[in-house]
């Protein structure tokens, strides 16, 4: 195994964990920068932004709320997967992919609902976290390592 690749392993671990933390932490920062919904989270947040009159096809309030909660849930699940099987395991990769899909969906929904101007850091951090998970899962490193 090349020396450079071996050194990449702890970096991937850290990136994977940081990605999970970003997904988890996104639930606790502003998803709407200002105006209605800027001080809200979860169900109340989705209620507030949907009540503004715009809607996303096929995403009802209930579905969007579930998606919103799945973002931090995937962050938490990624830690479990990383701790037990490592960042490059099949489970971790599947979680990373799912988290990315989920984050893109929620990001797009919020862009449509509140506009780019009022988009807070929440969806951006979530998307960055999901990208970090994917990057860490597919970085070139040895197989089978566990996180840290």
């Amino acid at each position, binding site marked *: 195994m090349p020396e450079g690749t071996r050194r990449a392993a702890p970096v991937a671990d850290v990136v994977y964990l940081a990605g999970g933390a970003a997904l988890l932490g996104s639930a606790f920062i502003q998803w709407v920068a200002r105006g209605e919904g800027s001080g809200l989270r979860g169900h109340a947040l989705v209620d*507030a932004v949907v009540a*503004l009159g715009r809607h996303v096809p096929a995403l009802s309030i209930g579905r969007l709320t579930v998606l919103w909660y799945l973002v931090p849930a995937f962050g938490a699940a990624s830690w479990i997967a990383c*701790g037990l099987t490592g960042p490059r395991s099949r489970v971790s990769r599947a979680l990373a992919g799912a988290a990315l899909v989920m984050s893109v969906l929620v990001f797009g929904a919020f862009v449509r609902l509140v506009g780019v101007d009022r988009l807070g850091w929440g969806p951006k951090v979530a998307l960055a976290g999901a990208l970090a998970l994917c990057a860490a899962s597919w970085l070139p490193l040895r197989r089978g390592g566990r996180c840290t």
Partner: protein
Amino acid sequence: MSELHDRFERLARRGTPRGVDSVLDAARSVAEGTGSLAGVVDDAPVDGEASALAPVVEIQPVDLQPFDLRHAPSSRRRRRTGSMVAAGGVAATLFVGVLAIGSFVGSGGGSDSPEGAVRQLASAVSHGDPLAAADVLAPEEVRSLDGTVNAATKKAQELTLVQDASAPLSGLDLSVDNLGLTTQSLGDGYAKVTVDGGTISAHTDKPKFSPLMQKVLRDSGDNSASTDLSKLANDENLPTFVVTVQHDGHWYVSVAYTVLEYVREVNHAPPADFGSGVKATATLGADTPDAAVTGALQALSQGDWSKLIALAPPDEIPVYDYRAAILQLAADSHPNFNIGKVSTAATVSGDTAKVKLTASGTTNDGAKWGVDGSCFTGSDESVSFGSVTDSSGAITPDTTQVTSTPTTECGVGGLLFLAAPVRDTDSHASSDAITVVKEDGRWFVSPVGTVLDIVDQAIAGVTQRSLYTLLNVPQLLPPDGTLTLGKPVTLPASSAAGVYTFTGHAGERVLGQETSSDTTAVNDGFTTEVRVFDSNGKALDQAYGLFEGEALQLPADGTYTFVFESFTRSPETVTIWDEANAPEAAKHPSVPSGLQECTITGSVDNGTGRTCFTPALPSQSATATTSTSVPGA
């Protein structure tokens, strides 16, 4: 990889890793237990004995792959750290799950502490988030406030008052900083949070306002202001405070308790009995929604404040907790109306009922009053003054006459029935019913629900025309038509503006003439106001006398916008004439009979050959206008 290597790997994974001594001790223990060591001397073999005792084994070369022992300890540490990460993930998953369930099941509002609730409110203000602010207000007090806020912001966006309904305060930056708070318990679940320090700053950023608001604020620039939050009630020698209440483990800011506590403290009234209303809910209220409404009306007419207090929902408006203070303050208040007839019609839906009240009676002065839904019929009193003119021409008021005219106001105007009726024909949006809520099996009249219903309907009734008129920018409305000299146009019977364009030329002098079948308005001289704007949207100052025989000279060629605001209750017709071709009635309109004719002793405006006079009147509150202008004098 060789088969032997695999076997070593399997062997290496057997059992629990331990030291050599431990392995030997265990082997010895097993051997002793099976008797395998019987006869074996526990002495170290002397030289030569060992080789004699050892079996003869032919050593074969084995191809073993190197194993880096330096990594063995770190592997164990990694496994332990990985387990910790996984455990953290499990904890985080549980936390997110609890949050999600709490969000779906619980109210999701409020805060964990009284101070937290106030800080959350300050944060909502800073972020310009009215919904977040409503989220931290006591839920029973603001039952459907979020719906009203939503409706108002949507309407504001629909009418382009704001650019984005989701950021209705865009352009107004509010900021609450350095908040210093102390908490004092007022009772179980009640706390007074005093603001010891902090500032609230407001800054307007005109470019962020909607284009409409920028036009409304055309003459003003950006403004900034800052206030010390701890000194808001300095005039009353009181600190700034907020009362918070606890519901289901969450703390909320209570507007009702805060207001009542301020009133109590300002008047040095007896302290509140916090929580007594909620505890006594089952013994308060009325048996039915109808009984609650009729009981409240009767209590109001009889000045039975205790009964009235008992009919208010204790958690929505906690007057029962403050009954000692309220009874002390209301001791000298005596209503002056009697009830002749009263009837109700209730529609019950779950724990909420809508009761339509129909009642009538007289006041102690003999004037009639009536309520039909949210419409109130009362008396619009006007005062007119008579006068005498002495030999020198001076005028002296000598008589006054009070005239009562039945007036009906609905919706928001109807709410103000105890004050002077408001001439607002656009507030016809009305809620027919009083909201009554059921708590602990008893029915209470809900002031908040009733008012918000009416406000909701008033918001729904706001039109672009009425809003632009209210904001004093009627010239921005799409034109209703084109004015042609000599051709009358009919204005809608409303105080909202009628907007017409007119193509004029520099130096052209125009006059206006108005006719209306609303004799009351005509007699009062309160019919139509006219404003004229040039093609750049600038108002022409000389337009105000257009209907008073004063011609308006147009300054340039171009399209002018004429805005007529009619205050009559029946359709009115206006005609614009070229001064040279105008009829006599336009050149010299008659003075409204309701206005006082007078002999002129005032100054003479040589510019128009007209003379105006305003008599000195006794200082009275009167709705009638007595000043006048007399053309041609």
